[in-house]
Each structure stands twice: as C-alpha cells, then as structure tokens.
C-alpha cells in the first residue's frame, strides 16, 4: 500500500514538473513581456537602457536557465511578485484558492447527491418514462454551455426577478453568513447542474449493471425488502466505479469553476487566472495554473486511493 502511494506521488510530482515547464514556456509566448509596463511608465527610455534592464532581470538568458532559476525559487516557496496586484503571488493566491475550493466542494457534494437520487431512480426501471425524462435532463446538463447557463440564471433570477445578487462574494457593509450564502446560490447551482448530467449517467449505468448481478438476485430471494436491496446491497457495489469517475472529473469541475467565477465575479482562482492572463501578469498566471494542476492531480490521487479502499479485491 505504502509503495503504491509513493509511486503515485512520484508520478504526480513528475506530471507537475513537466507541466510547470510547459506552462512556463507558454506564458513566455503571451503578448508583451515583463518589462513593458516598467518601460511604458518612463518616457524617453533608450534601447540601451532596456537592454541593461533585461540583463539585470535575467531576461536575456536562455529559456532553460530562466526556468531553472524560477523552479529553484518556487521550490523554496518564492513564487515571485504579482505585478497587477503589487503583492507577492501567494498573498493573492491563498484567499482565491479558498474561494474556489469552497465553490467546488459545495457544488461537488450537491452534484453527487442529486446524481445519486436521479441515477438510482432511473436505474430502477430502465426504459420507463421516468428513465427517459432523467436521461433528457442528464443530456441537457452535459450539453449546456456553462457560461450561458450562468448568463440565463443572471437574466432570470437577478435581472428579472431580483431574487439574488448577480455578482461578487458579499455585499460591502454586510458580508454576514446569509449574505455570503445568497451570493453563492447561483454559482453553486450553475456548477452543480452542469456537473450532475455526467454523474447521473455514470450512476445509472453502474446501478443497472449491479442490479443484474447474482448477489442481488440472492438478496431478493432471501426476502430483503426492495429498498434495502437497492440502497444497501446494490448501491455499495455500484459506488466503487462511480466515485472513481467522479473524483477523476475534478479537472473539468475546475474548468467549470473557472467559468462560473468569471461569470458571477467570484474572487476565486478561475477569475484570478483569467484576469492575470488578460493583464499579462506572468507570475500570477503561472502560479495559478500550477495550483490548478496540483489540485486536479491530488484529486486524482485521492480517487485512486479511494478505489483501493472501497474495493477489497484490489490489494496494493
């Protein structure tokens, strides 16, 4: 077991390392360079002075060397300075990370709960009208553009009905629990609805397969009430592949969170990365993307471990 965890940790670290290099290289290809803001604020700067500044900041060095310096600093916890926020990158990242994790976790739990209810209901009578209706809803969830769903929710619940605030994390001057909750309702609903579609299909497929298994027939034959057969005997076994797939979908959940935050102006990682790229804030964009990758990798690792833990047939 420990060796398996160790190997998976090393693998994840390797993916993160490769990604850090790829993203570092890509960020350098974005328009502008770290000097242009500095240069733009000083009229009459000469090309020689720019060249000297380049040398001072090490921008004239080859990519590999610059990457190596960045990596060494990053490993010691120095992710550089955010030029659009004028504070160290970590000072901006930490609160944003918290906002995003909150949004993702609440939406994830809501989506899992909803998809289990819908998926199990659909699996009870495959081909029935309820199954068809749930299938339609699930397909809608997979097919809807998340940002458009957000836009429509704003249109209906904020613009037309005035029920909920359209943007932000809290109202200035309030910020109490109820206020924060009201600001979270639409983002969470949007992300959860978009995630539920795929999840429901997994739960349904897994439940149908499990309900056909021999041990379910035995459980029924022994006179167990149908609710117990479905919710205890079948669900436990159906859950194993489903939970894995759900945890593996953290990457797309993050993509959804990025959009949801941008649409509802939530101060999270997604909006941070998006704004950082728009304002050429290289350090912030780089670190933000790496943290996004790290979260996804950790979720995948957790999925693997959960799989091994839930299924006693797998010996690590």
């Amino acid at each position, binding site marked *: 077991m420990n060796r398996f965890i160790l190997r998976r940790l090393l*693998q994840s670290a390797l*993916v993160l390392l*490769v*990604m850090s290099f790829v*993203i570092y290289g*890509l*960020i*350098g*290809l*974005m*328009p*502008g360079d770290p000097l242009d803001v500095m240069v733009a604020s000083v009229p009459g700067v000469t090309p020689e002075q720019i060249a000297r500044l380049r040398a001072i900041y090490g921008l004239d060095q080859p990519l590999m060397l610059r990457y190596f310096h960045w990596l060494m600093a990053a490993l010691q916890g120095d992710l550089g300075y955010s030029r659009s926020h004028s504070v160290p990158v970590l000072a901006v990242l930490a609160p944003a990370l918290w906002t995003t994790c909150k949004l993702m976790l609440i939406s994830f739990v809501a989506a899992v709960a909803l998809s289990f209810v819908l998926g199990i209901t659909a699996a009870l009578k495959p081909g029935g009208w309820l199954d068809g209706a749930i299938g339609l809803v699930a*397909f*809608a969830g*997979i*097919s*809807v*553009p*998340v*940002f*458009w769903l957000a*836009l*429509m929710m*704003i*249109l209906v619940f904020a*613009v037309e009905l005035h029920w909920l605030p359209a943007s932000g994390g809290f109202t200035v001057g309030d910020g109490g629990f109820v206020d924060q909750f009201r600001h979270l309702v639409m983002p969470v609903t949007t992300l959860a609805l978009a995630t539920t579609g795929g999840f429901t299909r997994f739960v349904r497929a897994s439940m149908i397969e499990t309900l056909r298994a021999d041990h379910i027939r035995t459980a029924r034959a022994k006179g167990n009430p149908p609710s117990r057969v479905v919710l205890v005997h079948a669900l436990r076994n159906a859950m194993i592949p489903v939970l894995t797939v759900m945890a*593996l979908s953290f*990457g*797309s959940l*993050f*993509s959804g969170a*990025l*959009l949801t935050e*941008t*649409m509802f102006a939530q101060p999270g990682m*997604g909006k941070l*990365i*998006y704004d950082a*790229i728009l304002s050429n804030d290289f350090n912030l*964009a780089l670190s*933000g*993307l790496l943290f*996004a*990758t790290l*979260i*996804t*990798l950790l979720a*995948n690792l957790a999925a693997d471990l959960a799989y091994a833990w839930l299924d006693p047939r797998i010996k690590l």
Partner: protein
Amino acid sequence: MSAASGIWARRWQRLRGHRAGMASLVLLALLLLFVLADVPLEAITGIDPNEADLFARFDPPSWAHPLGMDEAGRDVLLRLMVGGQISLLVGLLATLLGGMIGIAVGVAAGFWGGRLDALLMRVTDGMIALPLLPLLIVLGAVDLTKIGFSSEFAHSGAAGFWRIVVIIALVDWTAIARLVRASTMQIRERDYIRAARAAGAGSWDIIATHILPNIATPIIVALTLTVGRVILFESVLSFLGFGVVPPTPSWGNMLNNAQELVTTAPLLAVYPGALIFLVVMAVNFLGDGLQHAFDPRSEQPE
C-alpha cells in the same frame, strides 16, 4: 430483413429504430439548412451581416430584420447563421484533427506496445489529469508573432480560426487515444492478423487493412461525442475572447457583449446560447443512437 443486406444497411435500420437518435439527426439537418440559409438570404436581401449601422442599434424585429439588430446595428438573424457556420466548422475540423492525433497515438501504443505504449500512455494520462480550460486559455493567448508567424497573419481572421481549431485538437485527443489503444490491443492477437503477418504483410498494411476498419465503429461514436465537446470549447474560448475574434461572428463570441447587455437586450444573450445548446444536445443524442446502431446486441428480435 434479409441476411444478405450489408452491415451498414442493418446499422441504418437499427439507427432508424432509435427515436432520440433519429430526432437529433433530423434536427441537425434542419440546423445545417438554417446556418447555410444565409447565402441565399444575403443574395436576395442584400444585407451584409458584418455591416454595422450605429443608427439601427437594438432595433426591434421587423420584416427586413426578423430578429432585430444587435449592439452594433447588425442583423442578428444573419449573424446567427454565419456564426453557426463558423462554430460548426470549428467543431468538425478540430474533431477530425484531434481524432487523427488520438488514432495515431492509440494505434501506436496498442499495436507496438512495450516502452512506446508506456510512454504514450503516461503522456495521455498526464493530459487527462489537466484542467483543460485554463490550458486552452493560455494556448489561446499565445502571441503568434513570437513563434515565427508574420504580424499580418497573426492578426487576420484566418489565424483566429485556425488557431482555435489547432489548440482544441491539441488538448482533446486523449479519450480517442485510450479508446483506440484498448480496441487495438483487443484485436492485435486475433488469428486473422496473425495470418496476415504470416503471409508477409507489413505492420502498416496490417494497421490500414485490418486494425483500423475493425475498430471504426467505436471511433465513430467517440468522434461524434467529441464534436459536441469541441463546439462547447469553441463557444467558451470565443466568449472569453481567446477564440474566433470579431468581426467574424461565432456563436461563442456573439455572447461576448451579451453579459453587459443582459439588462438592455436579453434576447441577444438567449439566441446564440440556445443554438449551441441545441446542437450539442442533438450531437450527444446522435452519438447515443449510433452506439445503439453499431451494437449487434441491440438488434430487435423479429
């Protein structure tokens, strides 16, 4: 049904029995007619969908402009048609390109196996683990002049179009690769392939004549589902400003300004998104129908 009828005829029969699949096929055909209708419409009415008229901003629907005008005074209906052509074309091209990458990787890994397989699958797993949207945004933000394209090309509409096709293809090939690898490994050791090998066929011959045709059906289903995903990616990227750039319309970038306009002109935000939603939904149902049609077990006993 006669036993002599070809395999594709039987599959077509099965697809016709799949109500949702057939409904989406009809819907897709109608949508295709809709987006192509701009050519005759432009010729008849003489309205240019890219021509702005600042005196006609937010004009309500009229006989000349059935869906009214947008924030720059352009005909909304015609722009929806042209934008649809772009969105659907991106969807098809990026799927084909990504499919080719995925098939190449999958066949290479599944057919030759060994270290190549281990390496390719590590790369694939690494890609699957990534949050795709942030990566796509970075790729979309790359300054083309920094990788050797002329400034003229980098700022043209064509560059915006091909860039989005290429970057989506670059990140969305992993599902196909895994599927192709698994299917290839399943049939790699079949007798007919051994027989071909014994008869002196080279690896490329075997791949082209025996492997690819035999794994075609799951690939077609997976590619269909990919089209839906790609159209969603295109709409998101264009919406955020990293994809198809105005004045070329796409369903995604038509929603660009819709967010600010949602209070003044809510319908401008409704139309393009609803069309994306419809197309992706139809494509997904069609994929479901094709899966049903390609699966011999779904044959109804007669």
